[in-house]
């Protein structure tokens, strides 16, 4: 089952490599990884999507929590949460029909065209992983994808719960 693990850690050199190291040395899966400093620049928030049974996920959260640089770890998927991922996708739009079709699908998915060239569009889309996957499939049917880049999932718990030091 897919899980979203959110980690609050010191924004210190080497902290990221230690977390990634735990995953590789203990044989856990990393499906996506998203990391950046928080509103407090001394802290970073890292969101990792992974999969495994309950025992594996429990070990992942414990082993990550054990790292000296880590303040808090939470499995967002245990409770109601908001998750978002951003994708940029560059598509070849060689004909008028293709351009129209890409534009139409972009509107349907509430995505945005952020760069326009004679032969291609670059589209920005935000949403859940499933939505991004669906958009990529749709676009692939009406135009050729030149390249794409995804941020990986980031997320927050809904309601009062929060990950704070």
């Amino acid at each position, binding site marked *: 089952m897919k899980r979203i693990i959110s980690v609050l*850690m*010191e924004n210190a*050199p*080497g902290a990221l*490599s*230690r977390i990634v*190291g735990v995953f590789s*040395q203990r044989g856990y899966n990393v499906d996506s990884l998203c990391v950046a400093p928080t509103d407090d620049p001394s802290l970073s928030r890292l969101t990792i999507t992974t999969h495994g049974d309950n*025992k594996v996920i*429990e*070990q992942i959260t*414990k*082993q990550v*929590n*054990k*790292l*000296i*640089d*880590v*303040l808090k770890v939470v499995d967002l998927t245990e409770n109601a949460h908001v998750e978002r991922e951003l994708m940029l996708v560059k598509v070849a739009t060689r004909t008028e029909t293709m351009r129209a079709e890409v534009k139409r699908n972009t509107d349907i998915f509430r995505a945005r065209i952020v760069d326009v060239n004679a032969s291609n569009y670059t589209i920005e889309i935000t949403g859940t992983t499933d939505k991004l996957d669906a958009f990529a499939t749709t676009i692939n049917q009406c135009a050729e994808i030149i390249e794409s880049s995804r941020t990986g999932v980031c997320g927050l718990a809904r309601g009062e719960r929060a990950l704070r*030091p």
Partner: protein
Amino acid sequence: MKMMSGAAMVVEALKDVGVTHVFGYPGGAVLDIYDALFAQDEVKHVLVRHEQAAAHMADGYARSTGKTGTVLVTSGPGATNTITGIATAYMDSIPMVVLSGQVPSMHIGEDAFQETDMVGCSRPIVKHSFLVKRAVDIPEAIAKAFYIANTGRPGPVVVDLPKDIVNVQEEHPYSFPQDVSMRSYNPTEKGHAKQIKKAVQSLTTAKRPVLYVGGGAIASDASAIVTELAERLNAPVTCTLMGLGAISGTHEQFVGMLGMHGTLEANKCMHNADCILALGARFDDRVTNNVDKFCPHADIIHVDIDPASISKTVNAHIPVVGSVDKVAQQLLSALDKHDLSEQRTRISPWWEQVNQWRSRQCLNYAASEESIKPQAVIQSLYKHTGGEAFISSDVGQHQMFAALYYPYKKPRQWINSGGLGTMGFGLPAAMGVQFAHPEAVSVVVTGDGSIQMNIQELSTCLQYNLPVKIISLNNRALGMVRQWQDMNYKGRYSHSYMDSMPDFVKLAEAYGHVGIKVEHPDELDEAMKRCFSYTDRLVFMDIAVDQNEHVYPMQIKHGAMDDMRLSKTERT
């Protein structure tokens, strides 16, 4: 505020932490630090012959005292040579700080001479590490390193020091932090009250309780309180390889070591128990055998300071996060409110059963008049040291014999590489013990394979007049490998024998020590006596033991805890 160079800060900070001994080896990147060491005599530096041995010495020092062991090495090969020593300490949760030199900051990443990414290399085998970037940060980094190494679940910490920041030419203000606190690191020491209550409930209603005591009891200096708890509960106690000595090996409730080479009674107790109180043990695969068949009737109470150790391999019914000493104290206080007299009656059939298992005397072996039995050597060693010596061990058959046939009376008396199983650990560890306890008898039990993995330290022993006693069980083979080849590979001894053994007596003498060769059973007692009569000399006892001896009891692979071979022909 005192002004000093980065190098002087390193030494000053070590003094402020209370370091007495640093085990190390100089080189280009740490020459400035060595120069600062030269100017003082508060921190004693021990010059080893190989950096791996420096780490093992610091480890032996730490295991025998509870204090943090300290290592100082240069960059590149100096640093990488400590890796096995760091991994050994990590697996056994031993507090250690390794100070490694690094190339100057501006050359990091350029593949400079003797450059290695030490923080990267050591990352999976350290509790934490620091790459110090400014001289003024040195005191804080060292203070934090020692704090982290010896709090919570102890472990090794690496402090990587680029050459430019320890430069003796530049001076900076020195200030050592009075207190170390870190918002991201606060180990839980006390057990949760609700969990303590549940544990007491289970322990006081159990019919077949057992205490399963591991290295955590030693690390938290909980020996006395664990013994008190065991006596209060009147339960049988078994110790892991790392926990030996947590309760005296001669205590009447002690049923011996458990696990792969555990005693029959210890493994039987575990398998048949209805309540297991695990104190600072981690349900290692060398204990549990097949986890699917592990102790099917037991309520498992698992006390450990590391939450990640709980329910990692075996599911705990009552997890208690906390240090063994604090939790054992909490359990005792909670038990004060219980009348345990009824419990004593309830578990008396259990003791009858336990004593019946004991009567099998699983450690008996066939004595011989032709060849020296390794078990007999350990028994003789016990006799001639009055059971009081520090025994360090290498890894292999001799390690198991030393664990089984020498009842350890005190914690920190038995020193061995349990988790990593590092051959070459024994001699340097025994040296670290001797540095920490100059007046004590420090023995290493080793074999002809293991001793040759760090034999160069005989030279260090000469330099510092270390009267370590080396008891080498020489069977002209890698005994444990050979045992497995006997059992699983139809006696095909692929590379487990040694064809060109050195003359160990001459070798010891070449290093300026005493060598004694023992070849017949009737010489053993006298030779052992002679060995310990040299109180101020290192003695190398090269004892020819029976090559065909196996370590028994031994768990049968894929079986339950108590599925065991008791000899070459008998099984449970």
